[in-house]
């Protein structure tokens, strides 16, 4: 069974986003402030890596990037946008709407928990590339820049693989007990 991580609900995202690091640092006592300052020096881009990154090959003008965002720091990382020379990039989630699974842009990016990970997977959260000028063929290396809320940027490279399964076509109820 494919491991699918549920996208946090909107309230959870918002709540998490509100727990800004800067706010905590400002309120801290002397030792805490030092600690926070140390942490603050490491940007999200320095703390987060993407492993097993791949994009789906396509002859159309859109595809998606998958992988596992891993955050080594003790601070939550908030991925807010991404860009690529290949086309426009959006952060997408897959949600149920009227009994069908549809993908849509996430309103508030992806959160990578402190010392945790956030999985980008077919049928789940993913990074959408649109308006591609050329097909993406197997073995291509696709470069995408991820931008975090703190302004830091992470350059990632994903290899293109042929893949038929998952993503938009989802059977309703396909996740219960299978």
């Amino acid at each position: 069974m494919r491991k699918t991580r549920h996208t946090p609900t909107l309230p959870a995202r918002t709540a998490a986003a509100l727990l800004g690091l800067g706010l905590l640092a400002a309120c801290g006592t002397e030792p805490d402030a030092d600690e926070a300052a140390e942490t603050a020096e490491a940007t999200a881009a320095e703390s987060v890596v993407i492993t097993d990154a791949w994009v789906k090959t396509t002859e159309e003008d859109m595809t998606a990037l998958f992988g596992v965002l891993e955050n080594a720091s003790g601070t939550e990382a908030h991925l807010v946008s991404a860009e690529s020379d290949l086309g426009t990039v959006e952060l997408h989630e897959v949600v149920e709407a009227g009994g069908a699974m549809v993908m849509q842009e996430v309103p508030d990016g992806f959160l990578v928990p402190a010392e945790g990970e956030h999985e980008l997977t077919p049928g789940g959260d993913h990074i959408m590339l649109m308006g591609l000028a050329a097909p993406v063929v197997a073995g291509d290396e696709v470069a995408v820049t991820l931008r975090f809320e703190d302004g830091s940027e992470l350059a990632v490279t994903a290899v293109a693989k042929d893949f038929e399964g998952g993503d938009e076509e989802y059977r309703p109820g396909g996740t219960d007990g299978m």
Partner: protein
Amino acid sequence: MEPQRKRLNRRGLLGAAGGVAALGAAGAGAAALAGGPDGPAPEAAPATTVPFHGAHQAGITGDAPSRTVLLSLDLGEEVDADRFAAVMRLLTDDAARLTQGEAALADADPELAAEPALLTVTFGFGLGLLERLGLPAPPGAGPLPAFSVDRLEEAWSGGDLLVQVCGEGDLAVSHAIRMLVKDSRSFATVRWAQRGFRQRPAGGGTPRNVLGQVDGTSNPDPSTGDGGEAVWLGEDAGPLAGGTVMVVRRMRTDLDEWDKLDAVGKDRVIGRRVSDGAPLTGEREDDPVDLEAREDSGLPVIPAGAHVRRAIDAGTTILRRSYNYDDGPGPAGESDTGLVFVSYQADIGQFIAIQERLAESDLLNDYAVPIGSAVFVLPPGCDEDGWIGQGLFD
């Protein structure tokens, strides 16, 4: 009624489960099936791995596991050197993961990667491909001449890219092939696929082939100086040093003709005893072959046309790692069996020297006919940051 039926069902289930486990174990599948559901519970497949990264590619030396699939792919005309490099990065990544028990990227059935059971994946490049892409072939590589015994079929010959998958687990091998084919079919077509099996004796040692012969005796040991020189491409191969030249020959055996020979006749064809693999001039399998020994009558103990004599006379050595195939029987009960002969050598001349001698005269030629033939250059191994064939592109 009801409890009994349930018990039977459970017994049936257990038996089936045991059979599946045995298929994963070293070639024990047939034995377990013969034993039936009441046979002793076989051990589960060992979840062991063979390192993928290293100076040489895996799957060439060491004990050959019980299963192989050799896949020969033809690359599309549109594939240039850059594209081929991208392809090899991709396939290397698949192989590195799958052999270590990890799912490949975008693996649709990641669970099937969990038990690699000594899975190895080895890549080789056809001479035609190297030439077409303007990549250097090592001095030891070259095409095979036509041998007089050849009855080659195009369907079993040649190819641009060889993918050799070996392992103890049928399912792991099947999954690896499936994954590698999925990742190559956008730029390549399958020219041929050959499935082979071998069965190591329970006590270890050299396995037998479908003719019943102990096959693979006196192989060179590539970990020694001389053995290494016989197998690995040397420094003159530049970026391919540490690689090897692979020959794949599909040999159809005529078991019905072979059956007509008595034990002594079979021994004389090979020059070794079928019973234990010992040369006709010795007592044990590893005894030296005495080509000079004569009977009281003055005739050589090992006949002039015996396979072992003809091969030794060539004065060179190759690393054989052959498998058997059995695609029969046909509707009339005819067999379709043979050998997926595989050898690795530093120089194709080693194989040619031996095969020319055998083609000229070898009693075994009446029973084993080459119907497929291919030569591939196998690049050296790579480290974790590299990929197979990378040196050719630097």
